[in-house]
């Protein structure tokens, strides 16, 4: 009784307890973000290696890594990656061009808003995957329809953010600019668009992940190249290791697209950080 009470007091006042943790702290701070993913991988590896799961359904991380390493030295991976990138980038930039353009036209005049806004509101909720058959019929099953489908998916976040961005500019800031002599075109290029840039670039960033998501979808539905095709093709022939390796490549693609967009956003909006 006496001893246990003493132990309790000692545990809440750890004065003379040697703090071993302090030696590991720098290492911990550097690696804490990787801790849980690495733990998951280790557990996964152990489960497969112990034979709890059939590696045919779920290959061990090491064998996926080995497969991926093998793929790096084949043309297959690079040709497919090139095709995928080409589609995603074309679709994305097409959407960026039209999204910002249409957004600006809509906010330019009340008449254009009345004309275009209902169309945007009607088409926007339609799932991208629902209109894929239409695109295939109209533009064939080649790259044109794939690029257009990706563009359709990326278009809406960009156009909506552009509209919201310009509409959200403080009316008093516009008056301040006008009192300093800004009008017409200069008011747009020097005040409205720069003010809306944070919103517009958020739309552009959201769209990057849309482009990869949609890319995978269209490539799995109908394609004879691309990483999405590689994955679905591997599944069809039960090459599960290759399938997992392909999925890893797609994840990396999505991740790096987002990072790239974030980098661009920070570069453009360095002034905006403190707000």
């Amino acid at each position: 009784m006496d001893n246990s009470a003493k132990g309790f007091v000692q545990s809440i006042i750890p004065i003379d307890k040697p703090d071993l943790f302090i030696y590991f702290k720098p290492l911990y701070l550097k690696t804490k973000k990787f801790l849980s993913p690495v733990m998951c991988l280790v557990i996964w590896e152990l489960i497969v290696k112990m034979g709890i799961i059939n590696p045919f359904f779920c290959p061990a991380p090491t064998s996926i890594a080995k497969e991926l390493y093998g793929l790096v030295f084949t043309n297959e991976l690079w040709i497919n990656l090139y095709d995928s990138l080409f589609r995603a980038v074309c679709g994305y930039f097409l959407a960026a061009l039209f999204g910002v353009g249409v957004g600006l036209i809509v906010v330019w005049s009340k008449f254009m808003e009345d004309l275009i806004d209902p169309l945007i509101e009607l088409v926007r909720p339609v799932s991208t995957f629902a209109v894929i058959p239409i695109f295939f019929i109209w533009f064939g099953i080649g790259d044109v329809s794939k690029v257009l489908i990706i563009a359709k998916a990326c278009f809406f976040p960009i156009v909506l953010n552009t509209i919201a961005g310009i509409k959200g500019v403080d009316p008093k800031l516009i008056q301040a600019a006008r009192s300093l002599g800004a009008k017409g075109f200069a008011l747009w290029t020097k005040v409205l668009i720069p003010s809306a840039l944070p919103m517009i670039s958020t739309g552009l960033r959201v769209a990057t992940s849309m482009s990869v998501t949609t890319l995978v979808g269209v490539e799995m539905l109908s394609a004879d190249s691309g990483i999405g095709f590689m994955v679905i093709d591997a599944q069809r022939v039960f090459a599960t290791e290759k399938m997992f390796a392909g999925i890893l490549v797609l994840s990396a693609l999505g991740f790096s697209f987002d990072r790239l967009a974030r980098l661009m956003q920070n570069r453009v909006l360095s002034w905006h950080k403190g707000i």
Partner: protein
Amino acid sequence: MTSFLEASKVSKTYQDNKNQDIPALLNFTLSVKEQEFITIIGPSGCGKSSFLFLAAGLEPLTGGVLKFNGRSVTGPDPLSAMVFQEYLLFPWKTVQENIEFGPELRHVPKQERRKTAIKFINMVGLGGFEDAFPNELSGGMQQRVSIARALANSPKLILMDEPFGALDALTRETLQIELLKIWQQAKCTVLFVTHSISEAVYLADRVVVVSKRPGTVKEIVPIELARPRDREMFTSPMFIEYERYLKNLILEEI
């Protein structure tokens, strides 16, 4: 001397979202001479700020005649500049770029507008902050930038809408003194809307008292305190008498 800004029977009516008419100003008549410092006070919502927006050409009037520099006001005039309570700087521009905004729009060559900007940065006491962004500055400093930005257009008329309303008392006093200095250096006319009676008396040649809505000029009180003015005047009997008199005028309107 002919009047520089001439408002005769100016009216302004706004529409609210139910399309009902809200009269803000009615038969507002005021004549301002060149290089005069006019302060406008009145109860909240009396339309004193509306008058500034009309004079700046930012909003159309709905009745009467408003002439600036001999011409009817139809839109923003390069010879007039407005300073707002909320500073309204461009957050993506540095202090220097903010101040260069007006000259840039008038296609003043880069070298020249840089020189102008630096001149006004020094005038408002912001030397060393040329490359700072607005969000890195305190409220008082931001308002200095805003004043410098207005001055960079070399305006003949500066319209100030409660410019020091959001600042703490000490910053406010400092900026009042500096504004008077700047006004004397820049030789411009100032129309200054404020809620503070002592500020109105301290700065003005004439104080315009506006009635409650719809706003009309209730009385114009010439302030006969000597210039240059100093802080000592705040406690002088004459100053206190002006304050008391103006306060009574406004209280009649509430």
